[in-house]
């Protein structure tokens, strides 16, 4: 029997899967706030929260992309990092290393993206993951 998909179901099935790396005290509260305000984004977006974006291993980004994620979004601390004053530089370096690893495996560099997300950045987070999901969907098409 043919099932007619609802708009939400059709959107979900078409929506790329995105792994977000967030940080416990900066970007993850911002992502929580997006939910608290019922700002919608695709349920294909899932989050792993860490203490600090400078602790993300480039191999984790590659691992995610090799295991079915369409994209990885690093919700970085920016200048707000409570641990490391050079966190932005470090996390940018981690993304570059990940892209080098991805290139070795024929994975396009634009499947990983990083942006600073603060603890109250509900709208910026939602906008970023929607735009990233759309860009990934277009790339797949």
């Amino acid at each position, binding site marked *: 029997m043919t099932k007619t998909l609802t708009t939400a179901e059709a959107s979900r099935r078409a929506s790329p899967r995105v792994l977000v790396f967030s940080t416990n005290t900066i970007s993850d509260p911002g992502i929580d706030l997006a939910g608290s305000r019922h700002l919608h984004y695709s349920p294909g977006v899932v989050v792993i929260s860490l203490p600090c974006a*400078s602790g993300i291993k480039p191999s984790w980004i590659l691992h995610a992309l090799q295991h079915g994620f369409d994209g990885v979004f690093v919700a970085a601390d920016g200048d707000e990092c409570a641990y490391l004053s050079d966190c932005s530089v470090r996390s940018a370096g981690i993304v570059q290393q990940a892209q080098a690893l991805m290139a070795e495996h024929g994975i396009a560099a634009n499947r990983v993206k990083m942006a600073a997300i603060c603890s109250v950045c509900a709208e910026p987070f939602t906008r970023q993951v929607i735009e990233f999901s759309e860009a990934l969907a277009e790339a797949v098409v």
Partner: protein
Amino acid sequence: MSERRIGVFICHCGGNISDYVDVAQVRDAIKDEPDVVVAQTTIFACADATQQDMVQAIQDEQLDGLVVASCSPKLHTFTFRGVAKRAGMNPYLYTQVNIREQDSWAHTDDPVGATEKAIRLVKAGIAKTRLSSPLEPIEVETTPKTMVIGGGITGLRAAIGLADIGLGVYLIEREPELGGWVAQFGAMYPHERKGRELIQELVAEVRRRPSIVVFTKAELMAKSGSFGNYLTEVRVNSGVPDLIHLEVGSIVVATGFDAYQPEVGEYGYGIDGVLTLPEFKALIDSSEGSLTYHGRKVGTVAYIYCVGSRQPEGNAYCSRYCCAATVHASLKVAEIDPKLHQYHLYRDIRTYGKYELMYTESRERGSVYMKFPEDTPPAVARGASGQLTVTTHDTLTGGEELTIPADLVVLVTGMVPRRNDTLMSVLKLPIGSDGFFNEIHPKLRPVETVVDGVLIAGTCQGPKNSSESVASGLAAVTQSGAILKKGVAELDPLVATVNTTACTWCGKCEETCPYAAVEKTSADGREVAAINATVCKGCGGCTPVCPEGAIDLRGYTDAQIQAMIENLAEVPVV
């Protein structure tokens, strides 16, 4: 891998979760996962009765892993760690999975998608728990003394509070006198008491307490040791500079702010008669009978708000205290000379809370408020006739251009971070993009920093008025008491750890750690890295730099994160 016995509890949160996530379906999807021996849904996981049920389940089923899928870990991690502890299970074998803020509430438009996502999230939580290890908090004995850096109103009040809860206090002030900014102030809102009198009272209270030792002309030069037991080096510049060593368990930083200093030419600054807010307040405080400037009676004052604050280039933040301080100053001026004309040119006025009443009173007493457009700020000039004028556009009358002759123009300047490179270098406190010290979390941990036992209070962490500053100083007192009164401090054991078999000691981890938590040691005759667990902050910044992958962050190990990724990537059939 040995088998585990994991219990999973999936919360309805009333309907906050279960209105959008089919929690029974989530339970059914994970109940047969390897190692899962208990899988239950619960209306409120955090309710006392449910917590007791969990304790019972842990004990009856001899669980060695606990997963609660509910709200954000920021809310209940400690609650459920407590459940585990009460049941005799190591609290670090517990994982909280966020299926509310990051699932049900974000996907109210897609219940099927939210349910699918919840299954992936819970499976990832189980995978993480499966690889968890029992950990013990790091215990350190603490020194029952606190160093307060900064002898302004915040530091003075904090020192008194600390002494009164039975802690020894070293109060370090860089200037020759205690008191800071408030010692220079006359009448302050909302009580109209003079700042200098408040400071005199506080200093007298400090002198009355023998457990407070005051060092003026003193600066912190070095700090070593770790949380609960810091050894500090303080330079005291009384005649011959002298270095003294003080042992303390915690440090309260209350170093205050600097006033924004406009550039010459900025809103006419440099022209005679153009003053900053602190300069104008000093003029008011020294005036009796009438307001005079250079011997001439002042008939008209124009205030320009937000000078140096909320700028696209420079200080982007609102300095918060200056609107109310200026409105209060205008009331003092009206007391001195009720006939004096006062014009307030503002972008926005924020006399928040009870200070709104001062704004109303100021208007009732004749002050005129005019809003100028952000892109057309007022212009200050002194014409050929010698008359000082301010030209502005009044947004609320259709942008009409007005020229106001004024005897004085007051630039309402805010607070800027006080530069203190030595202190920043010694304490390694993180600085925000605004230049002020950063707390861990503005709401949940507002005076703590990532440097354990180093607390920040007052305006060194951002603009505040004096009552807010004192409140944060007393919060730092409470936090110091919580740390030091037990005599023993527990540190979170989620720190870096080295696999010495894999480590080849290249030194990269030592180079990358700004906290000096990595040391070279030897194991089996080889040079390897070792982590000082009481110094490590648990950021994980050393883990990606290790070329051998020999460093793991406890609670976030390589194996755990990879297992989570694999489970999150699986698409369940719903």
